[in-house]
């Protein structure tokens, strides 16, 4: 008996401490928050699309003509693809890629290239898709980071507005929302020792390493602080056709270095199925384990199988993370991203990868602090309404069930503390409808007590003896309560599993509320009731 009472008291204190310690964010309607205006780079989305089609044409070309191509037969710029091939092949492209218009041919570097241009309506569609896709990706990302009750909506042609409640430090939010999280895999070109022919500027150094097939290849590097210098320098370089220069961290992590890669990436993050954080038990560093869907796994198997001995660069947001040598064909569709992250960084990366890449980079055009969307008066009235409502329930319970009613209200207070504390652990946000919801929860949480109390009354009429009646009332009432609560819980969990965004947040709150009511209104109330009964204080 004492133990149960002690549990009641201690748990109430623990819940209180958690709420006090974690705090509960107030929603956009009550307190305002951060406002971001994002611009989706639709032009880049269009370029990426062109690049993908170019990649498909290239692999088609390789199928038709074999692998031996040092000169690239397929090149592209923003909305144009240049193909140098026989008329048969060109006809095939015209047929296979109807989203491109054939524009005739022209000579570049003494070679005839056929020009294909992306159709206007296709461009519009890609632009539209980019914004809508970015919208759902950003929603998914915000969802990954708790139930924050955000407001995310499309604004005009290419903009997205994101409002997040009460964020003190917008940099994390910006990191999460703004990261493209575009994952690419490209083969490292060790055949052309391109950088050996380059004379670097001052402050840029040349290094050598052993590349594929034991060949010595050169690369350029700078100290960590000189990233911009290297980035600007490589812009001036003219990589060989079909090749592209990327920058990545050096192996020791303290320098930036160049990589010469194939310009067409064969596999990207769109084939990703999942991403999780794992610990490397040897180095004790976290890494991100990614798994591909079936299409991605097939592609990954193919690309690794065709390039054994070469290096495969793993690129995230246009920076090379690592470039391990492919030792054998990798099937099964899993890969790891290693790169000296802290555990927090790894978690962030995994979450962002799970939510999916943005179809195009986004830029932060505006960043502001916004005030609450509801007026002070409305907030005040809303809180008064909720408190009065809860108080009326308490008053009613007290006058109807007297001492037992008082005990029930203690149980309800514990229920609310429980719900709020768990919600605060989830990083939930309290909005005005949320507060009203809590008041309604008070009304519904007492239902558990009412079921039991009514049972006790029935048993009292039948048995006339208090203690057995109380016991019987609890026992019979419990069966009902479990069934009733479990059904609601099942409904809530289904909504949580299949719903998204705000509906999900609601289902979570409901589930926690039900568990809280089971604990507060059943276990705690019973403990207090029993202890009072022992002291012969009872009324119902």
């Amino acid at each position, binding site marked *: 008996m004492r133990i149960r009472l002690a549990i009641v008291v201690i748990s109430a204190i623990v819940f209180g401490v958690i709420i006090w310690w974690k705090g509960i964010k107030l929603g956009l*309607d009550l307190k*305002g928050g951060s*406002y971001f205006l994002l611009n989706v780079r639709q032009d880049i989305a269009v370029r990426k699309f062109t690049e993908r089609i170019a990649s498909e044409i290239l692999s088609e070309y390789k199928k038709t003509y074999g692998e031996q191509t040092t000169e690239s037969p397929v090149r592209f710029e923003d909305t144009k693809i240049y193909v140098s091939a026989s008329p048969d092949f060109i006809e095939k492209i015209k047929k296979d890629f109807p989203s491109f218009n054939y524009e005739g041919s022209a000579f570049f570097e003494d070679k005839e290239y056929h020009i294909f241009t992306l159709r206007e309506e296709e461009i519009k569609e890609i632009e539209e898709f980019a914004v809508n896709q970015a919208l*759902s990706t950003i929603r998914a990302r915000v969802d990954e980071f708790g139930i924050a009750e955000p407001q995310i909506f*499309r*604004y005009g042609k290419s*903009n997205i507005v994101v409002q997040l409640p009460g964020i003190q430090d917008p940099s994390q939010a910006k990191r999460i929302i703004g990261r493209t999280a575009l994952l690419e895999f490209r083969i490292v070109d060790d055949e052309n020792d391109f950088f050996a022919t380059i004379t670097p500027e001052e402050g840029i150094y040349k290094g050598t390493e052993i590349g594929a097939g034991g060949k010595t290849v050169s690369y350029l590097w700078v100290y960590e602080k000189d990233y911009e210098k290297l980035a600007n320098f490589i812009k001036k370089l003219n990589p060989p056709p079909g090749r592209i220069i990327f920058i990545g961290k050096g192996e020791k992590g303290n320098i930036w270095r160049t990589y010469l890669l194939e310009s067409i990436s064969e596999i990207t993050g769109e084939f990703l199925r999942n991403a999780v954080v794992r610990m490397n038990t040897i180095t004790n560093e976290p890494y991100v384990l990614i798994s591909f869907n079936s299409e991605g796994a097939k592609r990954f198997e193919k690309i690794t199988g065709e390039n054994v001995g070469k290096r495969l660069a793993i690129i995230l947001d246009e920076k090379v993370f690592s470039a391990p040598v492919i030792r054998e064909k990798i099937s099964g569709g899993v890969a790891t991203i290693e790169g000296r992250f802290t555990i927090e960084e790894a978690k962030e990366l995994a979450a962002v990868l799970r939510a999916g890449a943005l179809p195009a980079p986004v830029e932060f055009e505006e960043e*502001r602090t916004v*005030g*609450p*969307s*509801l007026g002070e*008066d*409305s907030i005040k*009235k*809303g809180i008064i309404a909720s408190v*009065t*409502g809860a108080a*009326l329930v308490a008053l*009613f319970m007290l006058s109807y069930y007297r001492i037992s009613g008082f005990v029930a209200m203690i149980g309800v207070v514990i229920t609310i503390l429980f719900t709020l504390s768990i919600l605060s652990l989830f990083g939930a946000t309290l*909005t*005005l*409808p949320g507060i009203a919801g809590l008041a*309604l929860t008070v009304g*519904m949480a007492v*239902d558990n007590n*009412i*079921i039991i109390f009514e049972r006790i*009354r*029935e048993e*009292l*009429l*039948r048995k006339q*003896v*208090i*203690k*057995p009646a109380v*016991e*019987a009332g609890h026992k*019979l009432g419990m*069966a*009902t309560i479990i*069934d*009733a*609560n*479990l*059904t609601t819980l*099942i409904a809530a*969990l*289904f909504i949580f599993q*299949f719903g*998204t965004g*705000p*509906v999900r947040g*609601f*289902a979570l709150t*409901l589930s926690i509320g039900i568990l809280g009511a089971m604990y507060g209104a059943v276990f705690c109330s019973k403990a207090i009731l029993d202890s009072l009964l022992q002291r*012969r*204080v*009872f009324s119902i």
Partner: protein
Amino acid sequence: MAEKDKFKKKIFKEPKVEKPHEEKEVEKKIEEKREDGKVTTQLDTKKQDTKVHTTPVQPQPKVQAKTQPITPKIQPTVKPTPKLITTKFFSFFPYGKIINFLKFRKIAYAISSALFAFSLFIIFSGRVPLSTDFKGGVSATIKYEGEGTIDIGKIREVFGEGNIQSIGKNEFLIKLPLDFVEKAKAEGKDAGTAIIEKLEKIGKFKTEKIESVGSLIGAELRKKGIYAVIFSIIGISIYIVLRFEWRFAVGAAISLFHDSLITLGIASVLGVELSLPTLAAILALIGYSINDSIIIADRIREKLKIARIAWTEDIFNRAISETLSRTIITFLTVLFPTLTITIFGTTTLRDIGIIFLIGLIIGTYSSIFVVSSLAYDIYALQKKKKEKEVQKTTQKV
């Protein structure tokens, strides 16, 4: 019988302390009173408590609560010690009174069908007013160009409560529904000028930027949300089939659609906009309504188990009547906050309040008059069919 004995043994603790003679008698009498074979009492054997019970049982108003209504004021059997407060209590619905609820089921079906058809009409004819959460609209950044600073409250007075936020000194972000744009267009103005004109009363404003905005919930989210609700109703039904009876599952599933759609229909007629918070309120109602139905179903199941007889209207009526006081009290405890929110709350809160008020009434009504009636009627229909078959076979013989 053997089963019953086993049950008894499990429940009853062997007395550890020798009890005074009188008390044993009391217990015996109490045991005798268990008319329906419900053996659930756990008698306390501790000395300090037993004191309370030592007074002999007085002649009491008939305790056969099942058939005879009892006045709420009952003479306590036990003379309480001063600390112990008596078991006298007031109740809204007299314990033991039985109302023939199933009698009204034909009327209930008629009312429900009419309301349901009406709501479906409202919903599918696109008469549900959607808020900007669902529909989108326009969003404008406006700047106050007059003297000093302007209070955001004044702008709220012009456009009504809603999405008006301050974004810096004298700069505001307002979100307006599509209707506003359409109205402006009909008057031959663009939305920007319409906003400025409306604000003329309170001062000089400039629109900095005006763009159309998308909904908070895209088509994809809406689809997922609908799936979520349907899956959850299926989930509930499976649970009810496993724990209760498939006939109750049918009744419950129908009533969930019934409650949520009728609430949405009536609320739409009253002009309540469907927004994210009001949608959440409807989901919460589903939880409330299923609770109500389960509690009645549970009582029916309990009665059937004890009586070990086939379904009868009487058992259903008893179950509904016995749980009626719980139904009323819980209805009241949810009603209180609902009323205060409806009366004191503004905009969203009032909408939530109205939705809850309608849903509360519909949900309580359906769990009393519809759910178990439906389950019973399915049973009755099956029984009739069976009897007919039996008749046919006997006729053939």
